[in-house]
């Protein structure tokens, strides 16, 4: 909280800055990861050109994206179908969804 805002009331901070807070955390994590990678490969940077470095980054991030897409699809597909079904006309009620008859 302290590094995000200064002077605004805490309640308004939690609501208004929820979305930007996530972005800031994501960006700082990215910067930390890049810094760590740079530290590790500073001696070898001379051997790897910029294009190869970009390709490697793209591959790593696409692997990360595929892995997380798979997890999201695994947990979220059935809820997605139920959500789409509950919003279709005529809208069924929650009691109809949960009752066994």
């Amino acid at each position, binding site marked *: 909280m302290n590094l995000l805002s200064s002077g605004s009331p805490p309640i308004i901070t939690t609501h208004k800055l929820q979305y930007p807070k996530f972005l800031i955390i994501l960006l700082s994590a990215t910067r930390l990861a890049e810094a760590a990678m740079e530290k590790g490969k500073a001696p070898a940077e001379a051997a790897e050109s910029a294009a190869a470095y970009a390709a490697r980054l793209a591959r790593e991030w696409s692997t990360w994206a595929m892995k997380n897409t*798979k997890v999201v*699809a*695994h947990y979220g*597909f*059935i809820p*997605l*179908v*139920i959500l*789409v*079904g*509950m919003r*279709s*006309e*005529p809208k*069924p009620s929650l009691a*109809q*969804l949960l009752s*066994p*008859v």
Partner: protein
Amino acid sequence: GVGLAGILPQKPDGDDKKEEKVDYLNLPCPVPYEEIQREALMSLKPELFEGLRFDFTKMLTQKFALSHSVLMGSLEVPSQSADVIKVPTSQYEFGANFLDPKLMLIGRLMTDGRLNARVKCDLTENLALKINAQLTSEPHYSQGMFNFDYKGTDYRAQFQIGNNAFYGANYIQSVTPNLSMGTEIFWLGQQRKSGIGFNSRYNTDKMVGTLQVASTGIVALSYVQKVSEKVRHYYYEHELSACYFNQALTCKYTEVQVSLATDFMYNHMSRDVTSSVGYDYILRQCRLRGKVDSNGVVAAYLEERLNMGVNFLLSAEIDHPKKNYKFGFGMTVGE
């Protein structure tokens, strides 16, 4: 006429099909490439199961349904010896279906965490996207396939992308009103394998014949003959009127559809030949399918409609050489 011949309706004239001039610019759209053998598959490969099966489908709206499915039976474990080893298993599967003309979402989730997902979405009038995925909790066992289908006036084209760097494309074209021919290529990235295949399908109102040849060494032929007859059932209809003895002889027509199917498959790599012959009786209240195989397997599958929305299933598969007997029974409730 005399007697019954007077009151029975006249038999319709035999179909005299006029010889129509074929308009080669206006051919019908062929069936999708993966479905050219669908009649043979429907008749010869029913969903045989072993044990107890119970399916319950609850329709919440016309398009949205939830399903619960229980299967208690044996699972065959692959074994080195010639013996068949079966492990008793039970599973519960929860499913949610959303069926719309433009969007179809089908999801099935099992107790061991496996998800079977199918999506079909019409992006435009001619272009459809199909996704078929089996996701598991264990890593590296999941599979997925994306298909882009384009439907033209008398052709269909499909492009596939799958996991493990699988890429495939196929194309099928109507050549005459009865004949359609197609080709496919695929490339498997992980194993650096590629293949090409050809198939053709000839169908009329009464029969369907297909041929498939692939560079993986598979030759498959199938033939289905449809025999449909309107069978006359006579029964007495009792009139509960003042005159109890008033019985009217009523004649009702029931359509019985019988399909006879045969299938032949040759695998050049493993020198494996299999041929099967089967029948498919679609009656008013039941559907009975049976087949005999060249491997010595006899199978039968019966679906009997007991009541509106209640089906009774019986499945049997007898493998004489391996002495493997599988019998199953079940019920399906709901549409």
